[in-house]
């Protein structure tokens, strides 16, 4: 418990409730796009419920600077992601990587939908079968009555 007090104190002292506004210049609009995308997708490790774009923590400032330098030196999305995950693990990515451990996460929604549709179709089929059976039972009764009354 005391361990976290340190982190908590640090967090509270650096958590500032306003968006971080920095002026970075880019020669190429593609680089600016990549920078904006990266700081949106990277998680702040101090103010852990903000991305690097929104956080004003000192570490977030440093990481944005790093990202800026990597982007302007021509590095790609993958290279920047690698740099960050090498140091902080997958936790730093708001877009979880697609790997074996996250397969269920990424394909889950699609699988859920499929299962839902299949259950739907199955239930509908079964309901209509049951109703058909009942119908023929009722029809059976009708026929029987007709036959009985006809025999008299």
């Amino acid at each position, binding site marked *: 418990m*005391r361990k*976290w007090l340190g982190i908590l104190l*640090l967090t509270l002292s650096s958590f500032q409730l306003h968006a971080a506004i920095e002026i970075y210049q880019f020669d190429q609009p593609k680089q600016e796009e990549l920078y904006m995308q990266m700081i949106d997708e990277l998680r702040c490790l101090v103010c852990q419920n903000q991305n690097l774009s929104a956080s004003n923590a000192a570490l977030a400032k*440093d990481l944005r600077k*790093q990202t800026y330098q990597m982007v302007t030196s021509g590095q790609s999305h993958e290279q920047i992601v690698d740099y960050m995950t090498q140091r*902080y693990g997958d936790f730093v990515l708001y877009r979880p990587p697609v790997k074996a451990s996250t397969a269920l996460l990424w394909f889950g929604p699609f699988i859920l939908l499929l299962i839902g549709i299949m259950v739907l179709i199955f239930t509908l089929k079964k309901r209509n079968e049951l109703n058909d059976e009942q119908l023929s039972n009722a029809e059976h009764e009708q026929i029987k009555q007709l036959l009985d009354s006809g025999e008299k």
Partner: protein
Amino acid sequence: MKNSLPLVMFILLVILLAVGLELDPREVPSPYIGKPAPSFDLPSLADSSVTINPEEMKGKVWLLNVWASWCGACRAEHQVLNRLVKNHKIDIVGLNYKDRDSKAKQWLEDLGDPYVSVAVDRQGLSGIDWGVYGVPETFIIDQQGIIQYKNIGPVTQYDIENTIIPLISSLQQEISR
């Protein structure tokens, strides 16, 4: 029975949440455990013409303690570190993180200096390389330069006795085996 499916799924959910109560969602484990320690070439706090590099520590088990004079929790753990080096033959290298030399030196004068040397990381870039996201943090590095453990937050006496000393002993024994 189909109607029990929601109940079964709920029970699984509850188990997950119960386990979750024991975990700390804020803790970010280090991806460096079992991997070589990142390199750095930083000036020493005592004499800025001297450079400190983790290479120099190869052959022994050592600790890297990330600290700063502006960090309140570092104060709390400092006595624990002082006690540690007094009672055990363990080398601690300090990483002075985003601090000012004068303040750092004063801090050590006031509170004691358990470090064999202190590397100055003024910009925090080496900190980023090591995956530091808060202060204080402490790493245990083995004789081959592989990071074996990371302590997030201040080191407590409990951590020393139950995790750090046993780990260091077992690492040191491995070499003499």
